[in-house]
C-alpha cells in the first residue's frame, strides 16, 4: 500500500512539473505573466531567410517583392530587396533597445544615401506593404498594459486572448492590440490592431513551422481592412543559429550587394 502511494505521488509530481511550463488550463496565468512569457520565450540566436512579400490590392492584383532577411534574436534585423528591378538594392536596418525606441535606417539606391527613419515616419507603411515601420519593430513589454480577455482556439490551437493598451506617453498609431497567444508555445497566432478612433484597422495572422527546436514564421498575412489591401510574407530557405556575426547589423552593410 505504501509503495502504491509513493508511486502515485511520484507520478503526480512528474505530471505537475511537466504541466507547469506549458501553462495548461489547470494553471491560471495573469495577462502580465502571459506576455512576459511571450517576451522571454526561446527564439533563435540568429535567423536567415528569403521572403516573398505579395502585395494584394482590392482588385486582387499582386505585386511581389523578394527580400533577403537576417535577424539576431529580436533586437536586430537587416533586409535587402532582391526583386523587382525597381526596388532591388534597397535595404533596411532595425536595431531595438530595452530603454528607448528602435533605430531604423533605409537605403534607397536612387539617392545613394542611407537615411534614418524619423519617429513620425515609423507610422508610415514599409515599402508599400501593409506593415508599418512600427509593425516591423519590437514592442516593448513595459510600454503596454495587459488584460486577459478570454480563451479561444485558432484552428486547433488553444489560445489566450490578451488585450494590450499603450501606456501614456508611448508613441504608437494603435489605441489597442488584441493578440491570440498560443498556449503551448507563447507565440501570437493572430493580432487585431485598432486605430485611434478604436476601429479595427488591421488583422495579422501567422502560420508557423518547426525548425530545430524553434517555431518560426512560415507565412504572415497582414490585412488592412480600411484600405482593402493585404500583404502576405512567405518565408523560404529559413536557417537558424548559423553563427551570424553581430557586426553585419550596421549601416555600412546596407550598401552591400546581395
Amino acid at each position, binding site marked *: 500500500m505504501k509503495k502504491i502511494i509513493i508511486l502515485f505521488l511520484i507520478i503526480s509530481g512528474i505530471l505537475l512539473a511537466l504541466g507547469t511550463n506549458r501553462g495548461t488550463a489547470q494553471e491560471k496565468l495573469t495577462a502580465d505573466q502571459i506576455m512576459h512569457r511571450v517576451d522571454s520565450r526561446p527564439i533563435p540566436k540568429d535567423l536567415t531567410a528569403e521572403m516573398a512579400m505579395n*502585395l494584394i*490590392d*482590392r*482588385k486582387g*492584383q499582386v*505585386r*511581389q517583392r523578394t527580400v533577403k532577411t537576417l535577424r539576431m534574436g529580436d533586437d536586430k534585423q537587416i533586409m535587402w530587396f532582391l526583386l*523587382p*528591378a*525597381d526596388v*532591388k538594392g534597397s535595404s533596411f536596418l532595425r536595431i531595438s533597445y530595452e530603454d*528607448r*525606441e528602435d*533605430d531604423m535606417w533605409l537605403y534607397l*539606391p*536612387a*539617392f*545613394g*544615401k542611407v*537615411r*534614418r527613419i*524619423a*519617429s*513620425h*515616419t515609423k*507610422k*508610415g*507603411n514599409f515599402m*508599400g*506593404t501593409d506593415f508599418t515601420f512600427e509593425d516591423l519593430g519590437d514592442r516593448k513589454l513595459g510600454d503596454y498594459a495587459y488584460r486577459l480577455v478570454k480563451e479561444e482556439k485558432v484552428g486547433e490551437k488553444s489560445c489566450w486572448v490578451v488585450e494590450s493598451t499603450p501606456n501614456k506617453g508611448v*508613441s504608437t498609431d494603435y489605441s489597442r492590440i488584441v493578440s491570440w497567444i498560443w498556449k503551448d508555445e507563447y507565440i501570437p497566432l493572430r493580432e487585431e490592431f485598432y486605430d485611434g478612433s478604436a476601429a479595427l484597422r488591421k488583422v495579422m495572422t501567422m502560420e508557423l513551422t518547426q525548425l530545430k527546436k524553434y517555431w518560426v514564421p512560415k507565412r504572415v498575412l497582414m490585412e488592412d481592412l480600411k484600405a482593402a*489591401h493585404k500583404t502576405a510574407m512567405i518565408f523560404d530557405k529559413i536557417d537558424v543559429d548559423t553563427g551570424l*556575426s553581430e*557586426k*553585419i547589423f*550596421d*549601416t*555600412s*552593410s546596407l550598401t*552591400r*550587394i*546581395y
Partner: protein
Amino acid sequence: MRKRISWAILAILIASLASRLEAQTFELRGFLREWLKAFTLSPNGYDLLESRLKLELLSTMGKKTAFRSLLYYSYDGVVKKGAWDFKEAYLDYYSDIVDIRFGKQIIAWGKADEMNPTDILNPQNLTNITEDKIIRKIGLLALKTDWKLYDFVLTLIWKPEFEYMRLPEYGSRWAFFSLPGLDELPSPSLPENKLKNTEWAFKLSRTVSLFDFSASYFDGWDSIFTPEFVFEPPLGKLVLKRLLFHRTKMLAFDFAGSVSSVGIWGEGAYFRTEDNEGRNPFIKNPYFQYVLGADYTFGANIKANIQFFQEIITKIDDDFEEAAEKKIISKLGLGIPLEQALTCRIEKKFGPSEAHRVEIFGIYDLKHQGILFQPKLSFSPEDSISFEIGLILFDGKKEFILGRFKKNDEIYLKCTYSF
C-alpha cells in the same frame, strides 16, 4: 600612369577572385527611359527627346565578394547624337572588420535633401541640371574602406583619379555665367599626374541615442576651374589666359535624428581654399556652407520637409571684393551659386501599394528673390513601369541664377521600364 596602375590592380583583383570559381549569382538589370521635354517659351516643338538605357551588372562571388558595373547609353533625338556614360565598375570585399570597395564608383555623403555641401567626392555633369542627381554625378576611381571600430564607422577614401565638373556649354541656355567679349572657354589645365596630386578623405560616424553624427575631412581639388587673367597692355584690358584647378580642404560635420515627432538634420562644411589669406582676387576665399532641415508627417500621410541653406565667405575686406568673390564660380559644396536659400518638399504616396506619388519641390533664393518650382506626378500601373509628368519653373532677376533660367521653364514626361 596613376590611372593605369589603378586599373591594373583592379583587373588583377577581379581575375584572382574569378579564378576561385565561386561565382554564385550573375544578374543584369536596368531600365529604358524615354524623356520628353518641351520648353514652354520656346518656339521649337520640344527641346529634348532622350532615350536612356541603363545597364547594371551584379555578381556575387561567395558571401564576401561582389562586383558591380553600371553604364548608361543616352540618345538625344533632337540633336541626333548618342553617348555612352560609363559610371561605375567596382569590386567589393566584406568582412566583420572592414568593407572594401575599389574601382570606379559614386560616393554619396550628407544627410540633407538635395542640397548637400558635404557631398563633394564626385563632380557632377551640370550640362543638364534637371537630371536626377545620382545620374549627374561622375564616377571616379577610388579606394573606399569602411572600418567597424566598436560603435564607430571610420571611412577612408583615396581618389587617384581627378575629374572636374562638366559645366553647360559656354553661352548656352543653361550656362551659369558669361564673360563679356568671350565667345568660348579654353580647355582647363588639369593637375599633373603625380601621387601628391591625388585626393583623400575620411569620415567618422556614430549613432548616439536617436541621432546619427559624422565628422569628415577632405583634401583635394576644387572640381570647378578658376579662370586666370593677365593684363595685356596692347589691348589695355584683362585677357583670359587659362583655366586652372586649385587645392581645397574641407572640414565638415553632419547629423540626423528626431525630436518628438519631427525629424531634423544638418550639414556644415568649411572649405579652406588656396587663397586662405584672401589676397588673390581670382581664387575664392575660404567659405562656409551649411544646411539645416526638418520634416514632419501630417495627416493623410502627407510628408513635408523644409531646409535653410547659407554660404558665408570669409576674409572679405570691402564691397568690391565681396561682389567679385560672388562672381567666382569655382566652388565645391553646392556648386551652383546660391548664398541663402530655402527649400521645401511636400510628398504624398497614394494608390494600391502606394505605388503612385505626387510631389512638389521648390527652392527660394532668399538673397535675390529667385525661385525654382517643380511639381510632379508619378504613376506606376505595374511593377517595373512608371510614368512621371512634371513642370520645372524658374523665376527671378536675370542677373542671378534662377532668374537667368526663366526662359528654360519646361514641361516634361518620363516613361520608364525597369528590368
